[in-house]
């Protein structure tokens, strides 16, 4: 063993010496060049307030700025706001704004712009993401040209996260006045790259914003191509047609790494996949049955065999990089325990049920559902697998309890505000049953709701995260789902590309520092 390591060390050293000049050259950023980005789908909208898709948000991140934004590790950092204060009761937030920032159409950024943007959310237009702000914000006032004051309806410990949500990007008021809802076809932000054109089904083109407030971006031009087919994206990267692609199928990763002609880069994402229980159905309403099903699934083996390691087991509904995530103790794989609990619940020989799953919506979703189905079978639970295209799937699940046929359904959930509350509340709170919210399993636990409420009104991060930890512990005790895993997003890129951001929000984008070797 020791000798092997020796040899390895020498090889490393020799390699390092041999590669040093090349590595040095590669660390000197170069200016210029076009980046061709192979995305998996078209944006749904380029108007931030109306987007609800990763492709839309990723393109948005290259064109826009926020009052505060997430860095690559999801820390909240100043962006268009340079500093902020919060009143003792948590209801008044005052932001100092950055001076000298201009929109791509020349409109200066200031407090009036901030007010305009939020009035748009609160007003009659009701863009798609209005519900992010309407329950929280009472009003926005201009204090002076570069100071803006928010008055909240309720204390809200995740307010900064909401401001960093992709939807809360600042758009040019002039452009919005001119285009209205068609802002999606003529977006104007303050970001490092300016919009040129969007040919649906083919490409979105952006060019460098020379007046970007953080300095001139290094890349000249970005072409985001719509490449739906996974293998076509991978082959296109290998052929050199794309510099950057998203969503490499896990089974392709080992080969690409071995051949070394392109670089793959996997990053843990916050996309949690779970099989949600419909607790109005028998026998799933029994807590012992829900616990048993959690014991019955071998998540480690699924991560290893289906995801090739490109996923991480999660203890509850919450992905591991969210603010407020707690690594609480959850269910180990224990089929004997599962059988014991099923017997206690009165089902020693298992029962028949169904499991709904999308196909191709999330990484390996259908394969994951198949694996869960097989492992449930091992403890006597016969789950029939039901699948449909995404539109029919949504239509089947978004139904009130009486009409809802799904006993269990697989979904992926990635809180766009990168905090644990959004990973729990909209899908598990008593007041979020469909049609009010996205609780499609009708799970209701008043204690859980109480903990979430306490977290929301907490004025210190420590108190907030303590409540969230307790909420996650409660979710283990009284399972809302079979907790499974959070996927990793694997991007592929040319060896010549440097500084790509693969955010845990499943957003792959570039910024002013991204550069490409000639």
């Amino acid at each position, binding site marked *: 063993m020791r000798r092997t390591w020796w040899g390895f060390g020498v090889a490393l050293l020799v390699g390092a010496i041999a590669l040093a000049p090349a590595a040095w050259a590669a660390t000197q950023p170069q200016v210029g060049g076009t980046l061709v980005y192979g995305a998996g789908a078209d944006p749904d909208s380029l108007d931030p307030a109306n987007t609800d898709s990763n492709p839309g948000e990723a393109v948005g991140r290259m064109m826009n700025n926020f009052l505060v934004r997430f860095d690559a590790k999801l820390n909240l950092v100043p962006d268009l706001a340079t500093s902020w204060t919060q009143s003792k009761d948590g209801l008044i937030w005052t932001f100092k704004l950055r001076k000298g920032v201009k929109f791509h159409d020349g409109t200066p950024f200031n407090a009036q712009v901030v007010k305009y943007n939020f009035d748009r959310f609160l007003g009659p237009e009701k863009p798609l993401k209005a519900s992010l702000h309407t329950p929280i914000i009472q009003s926005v006032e201009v204090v002076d040209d570069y100071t803006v004051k928010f008055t909240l309806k309720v204390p809200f410990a995740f307010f900064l996260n909401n401001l960093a949500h992709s939807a809360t990007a600042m758009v040019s008021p002039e452009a919005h006045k001119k285009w209205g809802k068609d802002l999606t076809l003529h977006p104007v932000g303050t970001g490092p790259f300016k919009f040129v054109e969007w040919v649906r089904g083919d490409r979105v083109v952006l060019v460098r914003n020379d007046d970007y407030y953080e300095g001139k971006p290094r890349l000249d031009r970005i072409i985001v191509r719509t490449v739906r087919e996974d293998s076509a994206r991978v082959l296109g990267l290998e*052929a050199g047609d794309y510099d950057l692609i998203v969503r490499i199928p896990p089974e392709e990763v080992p080969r690409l790494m071995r051949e070394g002609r392109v670089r793959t880069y996997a990053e843990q994402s916050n996309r949690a996949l779970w099989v949600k229980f419909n607790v109005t159905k028998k026998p799933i309403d029994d807590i012992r049955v829900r616990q048993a099903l959690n014991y019955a699934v071998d998540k480690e083996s699924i991560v290893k065999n289906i995801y090739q390691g490109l996923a991480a087991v999660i203890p509850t509904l919450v992905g591991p990089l969210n603010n407020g995530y707690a690594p609480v103790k959850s269910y180990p794989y224990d089929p004997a325990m599962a059988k014991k609990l099923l017997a206690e619940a009165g089902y020693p020989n298992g029962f028949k049920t169904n499991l709904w799953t999308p196909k191709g919506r999330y990484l390996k979703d259908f394969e994951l559902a198949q694996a869960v189905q097989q492992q449930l079978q091992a403890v006597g639970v016969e789950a029939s697998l039901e699948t449909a295209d995404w539109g029919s799937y949504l239509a089947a699940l978004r139904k009130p309890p009486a009409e809802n046929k799904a006993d269990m359904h697989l979904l992926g959930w990635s809180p766009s505000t990168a905090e644990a509350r959004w990973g729990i509340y909209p899908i598990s709170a008593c007041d979020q049953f469909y049609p009010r919210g996205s609780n499609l399993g009708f799970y209701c636990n008043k204690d859980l709701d109480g903990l979430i409420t306490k977290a929301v009104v907490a004025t210190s991060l420590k108190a907030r995260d303590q409540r969230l930890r307790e909420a996650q512990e409660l979710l283990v005790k009284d399972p809302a789902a079979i907790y499974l895993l959070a996927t990793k997003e694997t991007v592929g890129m040319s060896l010549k590309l440097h500084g790509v951001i693969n955010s845990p929000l499943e957003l792959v984008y570039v910024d002013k520092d991204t550069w490409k070797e000639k």
Partner: protein
Amino acid sequence: MFSYILRRILMLVPVLFGVTLISFFLLHMVPGDPAELLAGLEATKEDVDRIRTEYGLDQPLAVQYLRFVGSAVRGDLGISIQSRHPVFTLLLQRLAFTLQLSLVSILVASAIGLVAGIISATRQYSAFDTASMLGALFGISMPIFWLGLLLILVFAVRLHWLPSGGTGTLRHLILPAIALGSASAAVIARMTRASMLEVARQDYIRTARATGYRESVVVFRHALKNAMIPVLTVFGLEFGYMLGGAVLTETVFSLPGIGRLLVEGIFARDYPVVQGAMIVVATTFVLVNLLTDVAYAFFDPRIRYE
């Protein structure tokens, strides 16, 4: 002839009416709701209802259809529910692209198909005949998806001769045209061969030879021209299908053609886009069939349309 063409074009009106009516109701019978798909998983019912109202999806189906017909006859096909792009602009872009791709593909297909078919017919049972008919069998049987990926692997990834997908230059069309055209080439080759062999047995070919014409004149002027009628039929059908969108080819090569617009529109339940695309597909198909019929008269003066 002219009045015949005019009549055929007028026939388009009931055809389009039928096509849009059927596709409209079929699409609405499928579960799923464009507003729900647009709003996403996180949306409340209120969000979904707002979108429904905005696009008139809360109206009774009959009203929705009549509204669509009403604005369509005025040339307004509405906007995409999914992306707000004007449907007319989307269709123009996609049709322009699909036309290019189909033209290059049918050129590739007819060049290969006709040449192989003629040589095979004139040298029946030769090594070339066997090889080309085997090739044709291969062309028909090969799934486009697989052939497309194979072409990308060889010509884009390994040899770096051609781009793997996307649009921009004529070079971008070469691999898709081969993938899309190969099956048509095979059909055209087999049809040309069969038809030529049939014609070769006719008396007037024997007469032509007896008159002392050179063999090439006999083959091209007498045999080929008369053998073209069934080939033309195949040609028209294949071209019509290509213009109707080549979803698989467009998907493998990431091309913005009318086929993908239609299929993605169906998955998104984007009713205006689907309706618009159906109109385009039906119209091009009818027009190509008409052109084929007119071409018959050119190749065979005995055929007249009154």
